[in-house]
């Protein structure tokens, strides 16, 4: 999923200070799962903003709504009747959702309420960790299902570097050395000879090196 974290309240208050009526929008997808921008977080933020502004003597109207998916134009269209009178939109979706709104409602300011972080997986309740960088040419098939691009601090495709210690990365004991993980996994799979294959310099074009990326499915596209 795409993970996110709410921005500090102070920053959000600065965004909306000039307005009297705003629409606060959550998203039912990834940001709901990582407890950053779902229906509940919309409620918490609306109350928090309301109270913080009240303290500084301003009273604003915050309407709340949560879309099934903010990154999808079909759902964004639902908002049209709701926008009447709203001077600005604050989105708790990832950056994709925010841009979808900004693209659709050109005359309304749209502010992000969260910082979009990474594509990750849940390690345990309440803990999410980066797993994929969307490099566009998946090499998990040859690295034992563990990604050195997303999980090595130096993105080494032929690691581990000389800083791997006791299974940890040199940057922090809280970070696993991904090449230790890859090696352990190759051993478990009986594929240790794979380690000796030199992975050639990566073509970064599919990773975004040739500009913003797009997928067009001719059979589906209208």
């Amino acid at each position: 999923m795409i993970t996110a974290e709410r921005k500090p309240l102070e920053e959000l208050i600065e965004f909306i200070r000039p307005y009297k009526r705003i629409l606060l929008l959550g998203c039912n997808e990834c940001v709901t799962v990582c407890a950053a921008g779902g229906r509940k977080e919309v409620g918490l933020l609306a109350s928090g903003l309301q109270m913080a502004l009240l303290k500084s003597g301003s009273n604003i109207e915050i309407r709340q709504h949560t879309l099934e998916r903010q990154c999808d134009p079909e759902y964004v269209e639902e908002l049209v009747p709701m926008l009447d009178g709203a001077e600005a939109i604050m989105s708790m979706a990832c950056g994709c959702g925010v841009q979808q709104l900004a693209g659709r409602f050109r005359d309304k300011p749209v502010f992000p309420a969260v910082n979009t972080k990474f594509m990750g997986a849940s390690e345990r309740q309440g803990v999410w960790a980066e797993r994929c960088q969307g490099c566009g040419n998946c090499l998990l098939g040859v690295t034992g299902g563990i990604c050195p691009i997303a999980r090595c601090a130096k993105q080494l495709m032929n690691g581990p570097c000389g800083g791997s210690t006791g299974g940890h990365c040199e940057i922090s004991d809280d970070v696993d050395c991904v090449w230790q993980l890859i090696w352990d996994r190759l051993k478990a799979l009986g594929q240790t000879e794979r380690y000796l294959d030199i992975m050639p310099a990566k073509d970064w074009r599919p990773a975004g090196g040739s500009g913003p990326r797009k997928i067009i499915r001719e059979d589906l596209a209208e």
Partner: protein
Amino acid sequence: MEKFEPVIVAFCCHYCAYTAADMAGSQRLPYPANVKIIRVPCSGKVDALHIIKAFEKGADGVYVAGCLEGDCHFKNGNERAARRIAYVKNYLEEIGIESERLEMVMISAGMGQRFAQTATEITEKIRALGPSPIRTATAL
């Protein structure tokens, strides 16, 4: 200015603190009428949103009363509640509400005395803190 009477919301777990409140009543132990008790099936059921809404609606203090450590009827609902309270305390500070206005307490079903004492102590603490800034701002 007239005497400030704080409004305090106490979310009480059905299996412990709520029963303790009953006991305090049947033993005729006095505790302040400021405390409004809301019965919940487990302290772990109390959501951040419930707490924040209580403050938004004008509560001067909120506390969540769960079972003693290790005694949760649902295994660890009280530990979860404690972590959530710590999280909401930070959020309150961000909003500009003193985090001392929110507490987690642990009370067993048999502790009628402790229930009454906690209710009194928290009421006095909040009385000393004065009205919540939200209540003050709303009154203006």
